[in-house]
């Protein structure tokens, strides 16, 4: 179309802009396109293995398992070709696995931390070990996935876990003044039992509202204004479309886990105080011996840095590193700068420990 005349008519330009706006607001972008296969399923959970592109002799020996949050789709890690953490790690020679928790139904309302960390994760890891042929493995948890990974590592630290990577991990809930979520879910104002009695599971729309309400102007207005300002830039529009597809694809959180998240963590800070009990076992983070990389987003309004920092002085790991990245909760892994800062650092850290 190199010979096509440039459109200069203001009316046509505006119509074209509106068409683009309508398209990105009402359609789903092509996301999660890195080739993969299902190697294990249990209830709604799926374990995917990404098809390696690097010859076996050049691959890292230790496989990597990605664990994302429960209330969002994990394809944020594989958002779109050319801008995918999954694609980047596969191209860098990792045998890569992703644990997708799926969409819980009413029958899953009683699933809680105990089930996720002591039933689902060990089984998925057992399958990963069988498929990869490696007993040792690395674990990367992001957001709520980092809570699950931390609890798993503390309870099953002797399960050949070699490397643990925690991204924007909400682990310390002691400073309630700095946590907006903690303020909203204070037991004086928020009745978690009444909410779960009504819905069973915590609806995805309510979680989405809460996340967006932390920064209402940016999320409800600013995001669309930014899109309109850049609507002539196809790269920016594609990025916005993919991110909007992910942001609007919300899933519920099981009632059992939500109750623990609010009561045990946000209200009582039991994990860092060493008082969290999972199926009769006390979760002691000092039992974590795996090499640890904690990644913090300096401008994170969902998990402020001080929620992730204290784990560094509590774990028993000899090899540990705290890595700070400029950016927000999602931006550090899915933003335009992720491929220049966060991903290369994770790759370098992990490659040195995957031999």
């Amino acid at each position, binding site marked *: 179309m190199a010979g096509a005349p440039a459109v200069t008519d203001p009316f046509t330009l505006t119509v074209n802009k509106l068409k683009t706006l309508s398209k990105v607001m009402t359609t789903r972008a092509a996301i999660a396109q890195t080739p993969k296969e299902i*190697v*294990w*399923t*249990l*209830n709604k959970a799926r374990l995917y293995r990404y098809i390696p592109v690097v010859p076996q002799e050049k691959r890292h020996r230790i496989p990597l398992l990605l664990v994302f949050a429960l209330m969002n789709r994990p394809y944020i890690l594989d958002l779109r070709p050319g801008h995918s953490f999954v694609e980047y790690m596969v191209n860098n020679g990792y045998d890569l696995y992703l644990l997708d928790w799926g969409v819980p*139904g*009413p*029958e899953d309302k009683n699933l809680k931390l105990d089930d996720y960390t002591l*039933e689902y994760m060990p*089984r998925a890891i*057992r*399958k990963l070990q*069988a*498929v990869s*042929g490696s007993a040792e493995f690395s674990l990367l948890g992001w957001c709520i996935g980092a809570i699950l990974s931390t609890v798993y590592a503390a309870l099953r630290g002797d399960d050949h876990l070699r490397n643990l990577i925690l991204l924007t991990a909400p682990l310390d809930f002691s400073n309630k003044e700095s946590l*907006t979520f903690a*303020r*909203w879910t*204070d037991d*004086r*104002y*928020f*009745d978690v039992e*009444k*909410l779960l009695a*009504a819905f069973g599971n915590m609806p995805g729309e309510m979680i989405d509202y809460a996340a967006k*309400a*932390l*920064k*209402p*102007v*940016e999320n409800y*207005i*600013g995001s669309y*204004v930014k899109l309109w*300002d850049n609507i002539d830039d196809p790269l920016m529009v594609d990025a916005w479309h993919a991110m909007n597809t992910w942001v609007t694809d919300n899933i519920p959180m099981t009632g059992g886990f939500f109750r623990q998240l609010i009561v045990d963590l946000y209200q009582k800070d039991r994990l860092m105080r060493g008082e969290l009990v999972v199926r009769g076992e006390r979760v002691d983070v000092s039992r974590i011996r795996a090499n640890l990389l904690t990644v913090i987003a300096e401008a994170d*309004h969902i998990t402020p840095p001080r929620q992730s920092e204290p784990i560094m002085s509590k774990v028993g790991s000899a090899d540990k590193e705290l890595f700070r990245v400029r950016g927000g909760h999602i931006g550090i892994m899915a933003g335009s700068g992720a491929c220049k800062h966060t991903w290369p650092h994770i790759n370098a850290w992990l490659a040195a420990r995957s031999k």
Partner: protein
Amino acid sequence: MGDELVRDGKPFDPMDPWRGMRDAYMDAWAKGMVEAVNSEAYAQASGAMLDSYLTASAPFREAVEKTMLKVLEQMSMPSRADFVSLAERMTNVEMRLDDMDAKLDHILLLVSKAAPSERMKPQSSTQQRTRTAKAAPKKKGSK
């Protein structure tokens, strides 16, 4: 004339000053809103609103659930509770199958170690079963 309308290599856009004002206003508004939602008053108000909604909707919800249960019973149809119970049992069956799968993996590993001449790479029973299933039609075809 053209030189006057070009600044930093970009054509002059009369909307730029307006955009600057808009962005400044939105920044100030955003900061104000962040402070507002982070206040004790907001937490109290949103908690009260949610509580009112849940309290007001509870009788209707219960009435609908009871009515639906009766209707389904009359029609000899399974209720949501029946489906939930069934789904839970299915998950339990899946877990037992998963345990068996793990044991099979372990047995295959031991067998492969016991027969080193075959140089079997330890792999999952799922993979082996899939390969066997795929290989079967080929044999038939070759005959």
